[in-house]
């Protein structure tokens, strides 16, 4: 243990508060129930607050939360968000311990563990349930463990925003038991080394090593030829019932595959380095293979900028395909940031008015603010099929993007079969579209969720839920699909009776599951009341535990914050790409790494340039000649951004508020874009700030003085107002 404890010391010197994570999962037929236990320990001399932002599968439904602290076990309650935050703050202020679990966005949660006293331990156990979805004859169990560095400002509060570090290594252990119809299935784990034991009543899958680093998603692929793939479950819901049905419909495809109008969009941002870009190349290979002469395509690669092969869709004849291959071979993860919104905008332009048209997007989805991208995609009217790649894919983004546009999403980890998934996507794209998809619930059903089903693909899973005010259900539930070619398919499922032995008026897991599906379509007050009734964490509710301490053992100070950092995704640290001879890199090429920390860039626009010049026009005087102006512009280009901050801070201390404000505004101005040319007025204002600061005794950096000498600018020259 002592060596482990040493290893847990972070680079900043403090001990990492999260000491261990254990995952135990039970897969009973298609319902997976996963229990996670996070252990925290304060290994410092002061009281601390540990804050850990972590990922869960997008469709996970959190069922309960228990905290063990100081020998006591406390059960969590679901509380309205504002009230929970207040109570948490009150507890911290009073010196008590408190644990609050909040949902930041779909698939992203923050655990707040307030006021751990020196040497105190807290173990937090929560479980969630998830319904696995069949895709053909396989299903994929996915447990994310880390959040890869995302592009752009995090939309969350600073204590919540995930941070990853190459130096932090969090660990987890995992054990999974599989019961029921899936026992006979074939299992593969592309992400970790696991052991598999087949017992009489179950199959046990566990990590081969006791612990593994939390640097990649855990994936278990299950392939079963003979398994019951459609089913319905039922449970009590207060004085009524709730039911969830899962269908896997098969319906005939077209005799002649439909030609496609397709924009292929490939993420070449820095975060794709290593495994992910290798996967993207493989995906492209598969795509170009799957295209037919009658298809029309274009290819778009993006990072900070967007690179388009053809501005409009081109027929996919052999010559064009060769051009596309050539384009594909050039791709690398060297295009900087992940400006995915702009890239998709370009795709919409390329597709223009062509209908029907599809977009096939290959990305790791590492974008902080992805919701606006999904919104834009929805209004574009094109279906987007996504391929989520990498070791720590942002599931919520790639799945939501596909879902809201009536496309579909495939997650493919580095060692999974890419070709198979690409073929699957092409089958979906070429298949006749479902025109009318309806789930017919028996009489007495209400509160259906989802309220509307848009996209259904042959062999994929459709899940639907409903509530019954009665305690008996009269008849089966049916799914009917009418395709655009006029064919209809109907699939019927009996609804089993609710398990007996459950106290009347209790709310079952099935009911909470159904409610969580409803919650996705609710807003404000309606959402809040459903979330409270069914004890669900949501945008309006948090899980909360308060552990009051006896008088005399309360924490005395505001706890020191210990944010638990993410272990950097494996592919960013040491990609395990196939051994290949290094390709000679052409001379003069610039390879860009990840442009991650652009936190300040978007906010700089708060001070509009127009306001700046109007307010200060009385003060500035233009340099006398064009030559002087050019020289001044040259000098300003040599001034690092930080110099303006330094001047501003220094001037404020000298009581020169006006100069401080001007320097700060100038900083905002130059911060808004390095390539931005300053106007004449702005240039002379900048120069005067430098002169004034120097005259008042500020030590300008040597580089500026040197540059001024070189350009023949006299910084000591009196300002001629």
């Amino acid at each position, binding site marked *: 243990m002592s060596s482990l404890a040493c290893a847990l010391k972070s680079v900043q010197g403090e001990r990492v508060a999260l000491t261990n994570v254990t995952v135990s999962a039970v897969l009973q037929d298609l319902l997976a129930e996963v229990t996670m236990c996070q252990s925290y320990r304060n290994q410092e001399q002061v009281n601390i607050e540990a804050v850990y932002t972590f990922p869960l599968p997008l469709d996970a439904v959190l069922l309960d939360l228990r905290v063990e602290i100081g020998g006591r076990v406390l059960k969590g309650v679901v509380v309205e968000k504002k009230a929970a935050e207040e109570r948490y703050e009150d507890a911290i202020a009073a010196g008590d311990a408190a644990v609050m679990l909040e949902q930041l966005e779909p698939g992203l949660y923050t655990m707040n563990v307030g006021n751990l006293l020196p040497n105190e331990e807290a173990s937090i156990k929560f479980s969630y349930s998830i319904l696995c979805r069949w895709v053909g004859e396989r299903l994929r169990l996915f447990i994310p463990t880390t959040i890869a560095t995302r592009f752009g400002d995090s939309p969350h509060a600073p204590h919540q925003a995930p941070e990853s*570090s190459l130096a932090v290594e969090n660990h987890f252990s995992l054990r999974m038991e599989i019961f029921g119809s899936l026992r006979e299935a074939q299992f593969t784990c592309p992400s970790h080394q696991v052991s598999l034991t087949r017992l009489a009543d179950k199959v046990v899958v566990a990590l081969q090593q006791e612990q593994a680093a939390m640097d990649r998603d855990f994936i278990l692929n299950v392939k079963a030829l003979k398994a019951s793939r459609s089913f319905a479950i039922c449970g009590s819901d207060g004085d009524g019932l709730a039911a969830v049905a899962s269908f896997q419909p098969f319906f005939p495809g077209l005799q002649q595959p439909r030609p496609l109008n397709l924009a292929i969009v490939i993420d070449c941002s820095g975060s794709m380095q290593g495994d992910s870009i290798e996967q993207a190349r493989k995906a492209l290979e598969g795509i170009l293979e799957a295209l037919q002469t009658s298809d029309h395509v274009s290819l778009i690669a993006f990072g900070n900028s967007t690179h388009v092969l053809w501005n409009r869709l081109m027929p996919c004849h052999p010559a064009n395909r060769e051009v596309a291959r050539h384009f594909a071979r050039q791709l690398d993860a060297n295009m900087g940031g992940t400006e995915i919104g702009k890239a998709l905008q370009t795709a919409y332009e390329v597709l223009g008015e062509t209908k029907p048209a599809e977009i096939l997007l290959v990305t790791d989805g590492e974008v902080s603010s992805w919701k606006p991208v999904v919104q834009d995609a929805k209004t574009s009217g094109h279906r987007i099929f996504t391929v989520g790649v990498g070791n720590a894919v942002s599931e919520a983004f790639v799945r939501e993007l596909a879902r809201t546009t009536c496309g579909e999403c495939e997650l493919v980890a580095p060692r999974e079969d890419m070709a198979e998934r690409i073929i699957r996507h092409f089958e979906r794209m070429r298949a006749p579209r479902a025109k009318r998809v309806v789930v017919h619930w028996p009489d007495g059903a209400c509160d259906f969720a989802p309220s509307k089903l848009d996209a259904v693909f042959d062999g994929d899973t459709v899940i639907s839920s409903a509530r019954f005010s009665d305690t008996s259900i009269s008849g089966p539930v049916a799914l009917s699909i009418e395709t655009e070619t006029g064919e209809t398919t109907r699939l019927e499922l009996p609804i089993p009776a609710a398990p007996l032995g459950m106290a009347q008026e209790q709310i079952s897991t099935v009911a909470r599951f159904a409610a969580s599906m409803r919650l996705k379509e609710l807003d404000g007050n309606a959402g809040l009341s459903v979330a409270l009734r069914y004890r669900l964490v949501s945008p309006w509710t948090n899980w909360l535990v308060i552990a009051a301490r006896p008088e005399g053992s309360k924490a005395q100070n*505001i706890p020191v914050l210990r944010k638990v950092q993410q272990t950097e995704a494996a592919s960013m640290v040491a990609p395990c790409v196939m051994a290949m001879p290094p390709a000679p890199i052409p001379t003069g090429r610039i390879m860009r790494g990840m442009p991650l920390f652009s936190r300040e860039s978007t906010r700089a626009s708060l001070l509009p340039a127009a306001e700046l010049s109007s307010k200060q026009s009385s003060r500035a005087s233009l340099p006398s000649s064009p030559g002087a102006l050019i020289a001044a512009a040259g000098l300003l280009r040599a001034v690092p951004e930080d110099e303006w901050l330094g001047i501003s801070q220094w001037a404020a201390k000298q009581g020169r508020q006006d100069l401080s404000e001007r320097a700060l505004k100038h900083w905002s101005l130059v911060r808004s874009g390095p390539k931005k040319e300053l106007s004449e007025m702005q240039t002379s204002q900048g120069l005067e700030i430098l002169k004034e600061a120097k005259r008042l005794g500020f030590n300008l*950096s040597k580089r500026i003085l040197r540059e001024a000498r070189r350009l023949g600018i006299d910084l000591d020259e009196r300002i001629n107002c």
Partner: protein
Amino acid sequence: MDNSRTFTLDEIATLAELPRRTVRYYIQTGLVDRPQGVGKGAYYTERHVEQLLLVRKWQLAGLSLERIGEVLRQQTSGPLPPAPRRKGTVEVWSHLVVADGVEVTLDPGRAGLNPEQVRAFFRGVAEVYEKLQNGEEER
């Protein structure tokens, strides 16, 4: 305002129009001083309110909290030190490939180089390399 007036955390949060959690975060990260006194006796003064307002001002101007911390800690007159590099962070660097096996690595932002200067620098390096190569051949 009376200088000897004291406040609770709640009150200073209200004065600065910030949520309590945010104010607490600023204290935890050292942007705002810790309160006077301990436990139930902890209190805040005018100085804390001023600090909060200052952080807010810088933030509205577009500074990251990290940078605000550095600016506030800057005591001497003169240029700000470059942002310290936290261990374990991933940075953006440009690699200029001079030839197979020869690479120049730089972060133009930190180096304070504009694109023209980067190109000029690279041309210079490339020239030196070429000269070396040609020298080899001549010999």
